[in-house]
């Protein structure tokens, strides 16, 4: 099979973009790792939306999941552990033109990155944030993460994690100015795709927690949920992910949930009997800090110099 060359730039902005246009280097995640599915989902979104690879930026932290930018052909920034959000905010501040995605892990976001996570929600700058939550530190070989269930064994807690896990959804929903919160899983690709699509279209920061399998260190960890449809609660609503004809089979447990209802969203997020899948909350009218940071973009050099002269004059003696 003869492929078109990947970097077929001559008319890249005219021709139809294919999945191959978004292929980066060969993914090096373990076989069966949930990150593979996530990668494919985002690549498909870009293809479906026909976003030129050079107009998209994927920022990540450090962790298995954070290798994502290497495997997708867009601009990418594989940053520091815990710090993808500040970097992404800096990108967004003056670049309303770019399609911006953030990939982070449960250690990256909910441990070392906690402060940035909390504040990024409040800043609400337009970007799609995907938290790949495998309930473990993958890259550094199996240490407890803030979402590791109580009693879960790891190399730092060989006798089991001593504390109940943080609930990233509950916390996110308690932050001022939160504007989009959703949950999906790597094993429900269609659902994942519709969530990402919704998130990408959202005018603000869309936070998606992705339940992610790590067969290498957490083999069978999500299996009880994955294999028991009654433990997955599908949220549907015209304003979130609309109900689909064939939902019934895959998701016997369903809830019509209005994503504009924050109090209900918080309740749903707190449920421990089921794992909600869907858009928990959505407020397209939340204040957007990126609209503030974009002031004066494109001011001319002459105008700047004139303003500068006025400033200097104030100091003249």
């Amino acid at each position, binding site marked *: 099979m003869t492929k078109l060359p990947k970097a077929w730039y001559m008319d890249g902005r005219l021709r139809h973009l294919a999945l191959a246009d978004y292929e980066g280097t060969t993914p090096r995640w373990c076989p069966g790792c949930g990150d593979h599915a996530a990668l494919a989902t985002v690549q498909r979104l870009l293809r479906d939306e026909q976003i030129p690879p050079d107009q998209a930026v994927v920022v990540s932290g450090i962790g298995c999941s954070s290798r994502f930018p290497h495997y997708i052909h867009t*601009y990418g920034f594989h940053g520091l552990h815990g710090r993808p959000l500040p970097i992404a905010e*800096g990108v967004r501040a003056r670049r309303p033109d770019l399609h911006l995605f953030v990939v982070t892990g449960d250690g990256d976001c909910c441990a070392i990155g906690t402060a*940035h996570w909390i504040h990024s929600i409040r800043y609400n700058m337009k970007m799609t944030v995907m938290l790949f939550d495998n309930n473990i530190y993958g890259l550094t070989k199996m240490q407890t993460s803030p979402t590791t269930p109580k009693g879960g064994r790891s190399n730092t807690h060989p006798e089991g994690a001593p504390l109940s896990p943080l609930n990233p959804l509950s916390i996110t929903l308690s932050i001022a100015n939160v504007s989009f919160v959703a949950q999906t899983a790597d094993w429900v690709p269609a659902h994942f795709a519709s969530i990402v699509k919704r998130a990408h279209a959202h005018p603000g920061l869309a936070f998606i927690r992705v339940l992610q399998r790590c067969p290498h260190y957490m083999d069978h960890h999500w299996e009880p949920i994955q294999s028991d449809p009654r433990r997955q609660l599908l949220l549907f609503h015209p304003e979130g992910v609309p109900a689909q004809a064939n939902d019934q089979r895959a998701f016997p447990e369903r809830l019509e949930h209005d994503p504009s209802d924050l109090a209900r969203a918080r309740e749903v997020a707190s449920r421990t009997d089921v794992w909600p899948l869907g858009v928990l909350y959505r407020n397209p009218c939340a204040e957007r800090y990126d609209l503030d940071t974009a002031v004066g973009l494109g001011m001319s050099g002459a105008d700047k110099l004139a303003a500068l002269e006025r400033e200097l004059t104030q100091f003249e003696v």
Partner: protein
Amino acid sequence: MSSASMPEGSSSVAVQRVREHIVEFVCDSGEGAQTAGQLLGTVAAKSGHGVWTVEIIPAEIEPPVRSRAGASGNRVRMGRDAVTNMGDGADVVVAFNEQVLYSRIDVGAFKRGTVILLERKWAEDQSQVVRAAYADAIVEFGKVGYDVVEVPMEAECMRVVEDPRRGKNIWALGMVTWLYDLDVATVETELGKKLRSKGEDVVARSLELLSAGYSWAAGHLRFRYRVDCAPRDEARVVMNGNEALALGTMAAGIEVCSMYPITPATSVSHYLARSLKNVGGFVHQAEDEISAMGFAVGAAYAGKTPVTVTSGPGLALKSEFIGLAVMAELPLVIIDVQRGGPSTGLPTRVEQGDLLTALFGQPGDTPKIVIAPSTIEECFHDVVLARKLAETFRGPVILLSDANLATGQQPFRRPVPNEAWLSPPVDRCDWDPQVPPFAWDPETGLSSRPIPGQTGGAHVVTGLAHDERSRVAYESPVNQRAIAARSRKLATLFKSLRAPAIHGADHGELLVVGWGSTRGAIEEAVDRIRADGGAVSSVHLRFLSPLEPGLADIFRRFERVMTVEVNYSDDADDPTVPKEARRYAQLAWLLRARTLCDVECWSRVPGMPLPPGTIETELRARLDAVGVSSARSEGPPQGRGASA
């Protein structure tokens, strides 16, 4: 009885011409001495004087009244020539109470003969304790040789206003206006400008107070000065170092200032928060310094060279991200307004303690450019320079200012900004996908990069070891090559630099090397000794990384070389420290390693600028110790300290 006492009604007084004078206004915080001092500074500058104004700041936000530690105010040094530092003992002090003077005395702000114009109302205070304290002080001050002139300030003010505590400062300014024979119209204009926003009433009343103070002085003081003035025709601006950094940021076309508040750097961003939008930018106050730095890194990546402003503790927190900026070759400017350290240290005080951490603060090899302005004017221009360096050499540039420059005010030639100073707009052209994002030139280490959005340039920036294409690379040769390329950039910059200028003769007995805000004081000390025939010169470094060229050559032309710095070193003669274990001042340490000359140092951590007189004394002691306090006229000696 004071030599400057006030026979009622004395009218015409001979004006004493002086080359320069230092005037202080000190009071409890909130009494307005700062306003009076600033106005005096502005008027002096307007009148064509060289000026250095420095704030006297109490340690607390609202210190109790009449407390020793509570001194608030301003020192104004004005002279015929350019004034480059706060100077030594004050000539004239206006004080609203005697207690605040103690902290000034503690820091050596006065000298024998300092004239203290002191509010005398405390002599009749209701409280016996206060009266006694006042009386004691007068005696004590007299003993150590200050010339105390008791002035009924509030009493006189009350002839004009009801509440004398508001406006006393203006009355005092009036007194000083007469004392220095300043142009009354100029003072009135400046006063009007300053108070305009407070309404006409306030302005009117203030003008009255000014005139009352003036008249009182004319009627009562029997000494009067006039500071010589050199004619100047250039347009000048006067501001402090932090304002200069802020304006420099605007002049550099920087659109993003990302910061977290920290003393004494914050006022840079206060200024920018008001003004950066006027040139199309904004200030981001992040949740912490790490995030502020990450935001800057993101903006740099996206094509907008940003500035982040901080001080010691914040610099420490930015450390990991600075390493990333070096590794990923992202252009940004880090302004570190140094304060007293280590740790939380002395937040409002002066130190030059961050030099080595600026160079070596990150794990692994992180070559980066470090520059230090040495005047207020350089604070302005060095931001423009820093942005260009950051972009040309693709990496972070650290600019080391300090609390001395931050709060010192000085007039300088009004800059004439031009478009070449501004950051160029983000490149939107297509990128040739054949050109890798790190096409390191083997000779210079330089390369240019595609910015997100540029068609054909998609690549992944990473803090992991990477090759020219920015692909993660674990191979030994790639790592060696990449690290060398990043290092090479410093050599490239080095080759473009000139040897530093020598202040004084190009050979002699003693060479003083400095960096940053000590320049003015060092050069003044050198000049004084040279005036007496001492063979002292000095060199001041603006580039600390890479170090400027030609240093060993210069050093070899002097019998001894020493640095003067405001950071810690063990004293050479400290009996508890074996010579071999001696810890040197920070620049001295660098220069020793670089030149292998036996670079000596004298440094202190007083939390304050080193006054020129103190430096002078130190330098003279060194010369005296070897019995060469006069100039040598022979040719350059063979440097003893140099081995290369």
